[in-house]
């Protein structure tokens, strides 16, 4: 992505874990090489940010700051600038949120912010819906990665619109595409990888599991498995059954005998 090879196809969020130690262990178990972070208000004489940074910098990961909670392109652009200075990175996971109930991206604000951030030299990872026309606008704005949602953030519902996600994948065969948000189970992540998506970004499904560390490992295995399946080439589904065992040489087979499944005279 943006000319850099990521060691892992599982991008992990850093929020909602039961403790900082569990977060660190889960990131290690996931073998993630990219993790997301946010920007929030600091307290006077506070060392919250410094402590968290020390913890995360001890891991072999690259940080992808987000603009979570931003409602307008302007808020997102300002947040991105602040993240670039704080973390010394031009990577930004761009979120412009339209609605509290669905946390769905404001696609108009998203395109506006992406255009400006690309002009300012950012490498933008836009959190978007699976809408093809928005994808084209984001690519035209200079985005070299797209991150369509699986389903709304935190819902764990998996891939709500697999047909549109397949279309998006087919439409941009060479662009890195990451499923971001809505993944609840390793099988959802595997399904995304089997479709040919390049990576999956998730947080809640791991952080809120009873055992986040084991769940992180489960996701890593599913994603590796789904990717291998995609590369190996999946068969086309068929409406009709086809015997896998050879028909030739079937015992007790007699052309004159009544056919199974049909009533005898």
């Amino acid at each position, binding site marked *: 992505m943006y000319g850099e090879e990521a060691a892992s196809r599982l991008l992990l*969020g*850093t*929020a*909602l*874990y039961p403790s900082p130690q569990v*977060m660190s262990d889960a990131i290690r178990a996931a073998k993630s090489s990219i993790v*997301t*972070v*946010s*920007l*929030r*208000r*600091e307290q*006077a*004489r*506070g*060392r*919250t*940010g*410094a402590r*968290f*940074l020390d913890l*995360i910098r001890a891991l072999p990961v690259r*940080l992808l*700051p*987000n603009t*979570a909670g931003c409602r307008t392109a*302007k*808020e997102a*652009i*300002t*947040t991105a*600038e*602040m*993240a670039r*200075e*704080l*973390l010394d990175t031009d990577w930004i996971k761009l979120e412009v949120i339209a609605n509290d109930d669905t946390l769905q991206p404001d696609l108009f604000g998203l395109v506006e912010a992406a255009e400006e951030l690309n002009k300012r030299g950012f490498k933008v990872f836009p959190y978007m819906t699976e809408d093809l026309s928005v994808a084209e606008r984001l690519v035209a704005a200079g985005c070299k990665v797209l991150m369509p949602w699986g389903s709304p*953030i935190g819902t764990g519902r998996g891939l709500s619109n697999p047909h549109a996600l397949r279309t998006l994948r087919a439409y941009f065969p060479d662009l890195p595409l990451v499923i971001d*948000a809505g993944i609840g189970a390793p099988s959802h992540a595997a399904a995304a990888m089997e479709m040919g998506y390049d990576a999956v970004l998730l*947080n*809640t499904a791991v952080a809120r599991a009873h055992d986040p560390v084991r769940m992180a490992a489960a996701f890593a295995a599913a994603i590796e498995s789904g990717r291998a399946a995609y590369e190996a080439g999946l068969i086309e589904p068929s409406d009709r059954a086809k015997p896998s065992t050879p028909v030739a040489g079937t015992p007790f087979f007699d052309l004159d005998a009544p056919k199974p499944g049909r009533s005898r005279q």
Partner: protein
Amino acid sequence: MTETATRLCDITLNGAAVATGAATLAALLAEQGFAGIKVATALNGEFVPERLRPATALAAGDRVEILTVRQGG
């Protein structure tokens, strides 16, 4: 009334009302206990790089954001 008190200026800092004697953004950070802490700043919704904080004057009604890195998804 002291000279400092006459120069107190009402601003909003991270969403809360603050009366400050600081004339610049850099002075505000020192005054409010952010000295030596790595933060990013915005004034009235616009990013202010660290190097520009000493030259960034404050006025009544300004909205200042002081942010740091946190957990995120």
